[in-house]
């Protein structure tokens, strides 16, 4: 399979994702400049973390209008796999590819630390290699990662099982103290209704080797590789 990592002006985790995919996972991966069109041979597009367009106005608000995003929206509409990490998650929400929005952390502080996450759903191409209820340790590093959705949207997310990851404590309970940013319902990652677009605030690419303190991030990437390898991609294409 082939991966594409979008580079927006102000992206800073693009190289982390690239390195994780290329060196650690031996994947075919290329950078995609935000002004270019989307390479049609790509199976999964990653929107990396960072501060696209300086995060001016709102995080992801301007990145969402980068030329490549027109192709990304079309690609997602055809069932293509799209993964947004941190600023990428914010951009996917701004683009309307994912429900809800990410606002200022309730603590008003930038958080940079490892968190425990619980895998809530495994019938997505991004978590199919994990077990339901499995705990993952990944780092977060953001100032505006507080997930918000109104009541109607939240109920729909729960009903459709679109909440893929929740912040939990060491025992796997979604306690308020385990929530690093005030996200509603301890939500750390959501997918769209088609389950082919996934956004999360924690960084799987920064937890891909023992020396980084955790290898749990590989679960996310290896899920995508497994889903594409088994030809299950077609299933996600609906």
């Amino acid at each position: 399979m082939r991966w594409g990592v979008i580079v927006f002006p102000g992206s800073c985790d693009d190289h982390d994702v690239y390195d994780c995919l290329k060196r650690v996972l031996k994947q075919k991966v290329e950078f995609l400049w935000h002004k270019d069109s989307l390479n049609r041979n790509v199976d999964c597009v990653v929107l990396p973390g960072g501060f696209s367009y300086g995060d001016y106005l709102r995080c992801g608000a301007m990145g969402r209008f980068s030329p490549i995003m027109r192709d990304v929206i079309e690609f997602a509409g055809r069932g293509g796999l799209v993964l947004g990490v941190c600023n990428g998650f914010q951009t996917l929400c701004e683009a309307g590819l994912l429900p809800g929005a990410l606002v200022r952390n309730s603590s008003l502080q930038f958080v940079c630390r490892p968190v425990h996450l619980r895998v809530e759903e495994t019938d997505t191409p991004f978590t199919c290699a994990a077990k339901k209820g499995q705990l993952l340790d990944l780092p977060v590093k953001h100032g505006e990662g507080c997930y918000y959705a109104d009541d109607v949207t939240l109920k729909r997310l729960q009903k459709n099982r679109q909440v893929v990851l929740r912040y939990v404590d060491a025992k796997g309970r979604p306690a308020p103290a385990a929530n690093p940013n005030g996200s509603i319902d301890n939500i750390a990652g959501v997918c769209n209704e088609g389950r082919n677009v996934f956004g999360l605030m924690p960084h799987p690419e920064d937890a891909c080797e023992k020396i980084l303190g955790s290898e749990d991030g590989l679960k996310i990437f290896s899920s995508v590789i497994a889903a594409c390898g088994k030809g299950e991609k077609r299933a996600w294409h609906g």
Partner: protein
Amino acid sequence: MRVKIFISFKDGVLDPQGKAVERSLHSLGYQEVRDVRMGKYMEIELEASSRQAAEARVREMCDKLLANPVIEDYRFEIQE
């Protein structure tokens, strides 16, 4: 035309900045202060054939980029 745009959080959206400012005001002795909400304020200069035309354009700008309808409301004033 000069347009003044005011963007604010919808009711129900947490506004920790507003809360922090409220606490600061309380600590300065302004105990009567309640419900501080932070927002954004923009001014833009715009050419338009009529007030109506300007309104339509500004509304479009707000819906598309300047405000996020998931979390924000907006209003604007046009000065000719």
